[in-house]
């Protein structure tokens, strides 16, 4: 990236909301996402957090590494509890606080799916954020439905996962909710503008943040942003916004509609130990999966 392309820093101060001294692993993508969140909402948020890495990252009672409100809730219940909080605030006339369900991929794509679908269908007035580190990282890297094909996990220890990643954003698009976006910790400015956009919309809003996990994906903690960007640059993770029935590709993904502009998927895979013993035919299958995703996105393009 040339000097002229350097973007201004996001408007948050490091010690305002996301305080130093949390319990995240080195290179963890979650505090990155939380900092972007704090740049948009400050401390006027209520995070509804089911069992996930964030439950631990924010620290031990009576301390808390976020200067914001957090309600820790049962694994399957993030969207339902957040619905209740949002309805209570509405009934009590509290309008300056944003209710955000903040859940991992297990709490969203697996155990929380029914509650998520219910809240989406009811068009509850809240933002649901799924930070997607593609496995049950907090319990020790077990496979989730959001784990991609071929990835090693502790419950797919020899052959890797034999199914493709469940596409939760696509499922939410199928619910026709007011706003769906995909984002990545590799592109904080893009995430920032998506949160700003979500903030300006009423009803159910869903953002899925791709979040590379150093211990879970088996890479050096210094590569979190690099791998997040590679996921986008290879076309594996497509950044877009869905609003009013249409999809708009986000800046980093826009040129990649042309497959020749995408970097080879191998560049993304080879940096991650979880793909170390992936079979060549699975790499081909991933390539087909990428093409299928782009074809789907194209159908909704403006």
């Amino acid at each position, binding site marked *: 990236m040339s000097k002229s392309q350097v973007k201004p820093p996001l408007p948050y101060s490091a010690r305002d909301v996301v305080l130093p001294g949390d319990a995240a692993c080195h290179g963890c993508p979650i505090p990155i996402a939380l900092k972007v969140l704090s740049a948009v909402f400050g*401390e*006027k*948020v*209520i995070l*509804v957090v089911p069992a996930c890495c964030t*439950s*631990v990252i*924010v*620290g*031990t*009672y*009576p301390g*808390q590494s*976020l*200067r*914001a*409100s*957090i*309600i*820790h*809730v*049962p694994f*399957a*219940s993030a*969207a*339902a*509890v*957040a*619905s*209740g*909080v*949002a*309805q*209570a*605030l*509405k*009934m*009590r006339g*509290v309008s*300056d*606080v*944003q209710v955000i369900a903040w859940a991992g991929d297990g709490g969203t794509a697996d155990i929380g799916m*029914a*509650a998520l*679908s*219910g809240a989406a*269908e*009811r068009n509850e007035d809240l933002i649901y954020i799924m930070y997607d580190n593609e496995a049950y990282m907090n319990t020790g890297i077990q496979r989730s439905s959001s784990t991609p094909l071929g990835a090693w996990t502790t419950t797919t220890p020899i052959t890797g996962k034999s199914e493709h990643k469940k596409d939760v954003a696509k499922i939410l698009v199928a619910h026709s909710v007011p706003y769906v976006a995909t984002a990545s910790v590799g592109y904080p400015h893009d995430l920032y503008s998506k949160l700003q956009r979500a903030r300006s919309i009423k009803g159910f809003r869903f953002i899925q943040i791709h979040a590379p996990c150093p211990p879970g994906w088996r890479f050096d903690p210094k590569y979190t942003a690099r791998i997040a960007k590679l996921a986008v640059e290879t076309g594996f993770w497509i950044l877009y916004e869905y609003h009013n029935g249409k999809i708009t590709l986000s800046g980093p993904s826009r040129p990649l509609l042309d497959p020749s502009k995408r970097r080879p998927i191998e560049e993304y895979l080879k940096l991650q130990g979880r793909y170390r013993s992936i079979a060549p035919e699975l790499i081909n299958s991933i390539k087909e999966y990428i093409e299928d995703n782009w074809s789907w996105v194209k159908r909704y393009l403006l």
Partner: protein
Amino acid sequence: MPRVIALTGNHAVAYAVKLAKPDVIAAYPITPQSPIVEKLSEMIESGELKSSMIRVESEHSALAACFGAAVAGARVFTATSSQGLLYMHEVVHWASRARIPMVMALVSRTINTPWNIWPDHSDFVDQRDAGWIMAYAMDNQEAFDLTLQAFKISEDPSVYLPVMIGIEGFILSHTAMPVEILDEKQVEEWLGERKQPYIVDGSEPLGLGGLTPPEDTEDMFYGIQVAMEKSKDTIRRVDREYGKLFGREYGGLVSCYNCSDAKYFAVAMGSWSGDLIEATSKLRDEGYSLGVVRVRFYRPFPHEDLWGTLRGAKGVFVFDRAISFGAWGPIYTDLVAGLLQYTSKLPPVVNVVAGIAGVHVGAEDFYEVLKSLIGQVESGLEHGYFKWVRVRR
């Protein structure tokens, strides 16, 4: 003005909830509970009740939504039955351990499999260790009164625990009886504004339920036990207060019938206590010295009240409409443990489990069983025992 109308148990609960004016209601349909939520939906859509109704996709989400709303400062209500209660069980614990006041109506129905929609107490007693105050009504008027009192007890600062009110499915839920509906203004004055120990509404940063070390967690759970003990006085006070204001006082945690001069006692909970009272009246006419103790509150367990009534008894017969497979009826177990807090010498305490899965047990059945049990004690029975009476007609 108060007025008396014919209401099913379900509608009696709904009318009480209407007077409590919850901000948020969340529920999922299940037989035999559904008419409660249907009635409340009708009240909301017609504009009689200003509540937000969250029509969730499961019972787990129903209680989760209530939990979220209550934490954020709303008075909340939900209702369920049987499988629904079991499905929300995780959140049942979550709510009480967070010390968040809320009210749930449980319309009892036995537990599957096989499919069976008829009532016993197995769903209710299954929540025994969850930290909720648990009460069970005998008739529709009591269902109404207890539901209103539940909000008062739950939101009392010495308690701050959720409250569950049980009624039997169909026997009460779908049977109409005359119920006195109270005056809205009077109830509003008595019940007052929503009270709770904390509110997470974003007005200040606040964390609820994060990772907590063992000692702090144990302290929190000890607090629940202390609150349970204190709630006994609150329950008695609310019962007296309600009696003075609205004319019905039930005796606190237990109701006693013909207990003052009785030598033998039958103990039961729920609607079949009515049949039991009928049977004992007949037996008293025949000269048997028999009283009935009706357990109204199962948690906190009213061991003080039971000892106060049962001390000196020649025999105690505990009727349980639930079974802890491999052991005994749940009220029996607690009652024996409770009495042993006061004495090492118990009279024969016999446990009769019956009426499981909705099997009808009538006054005539109680009559036969009690007559036989008293006969056994009179002829020298020294110890209690367990008996599952399977009534077949």
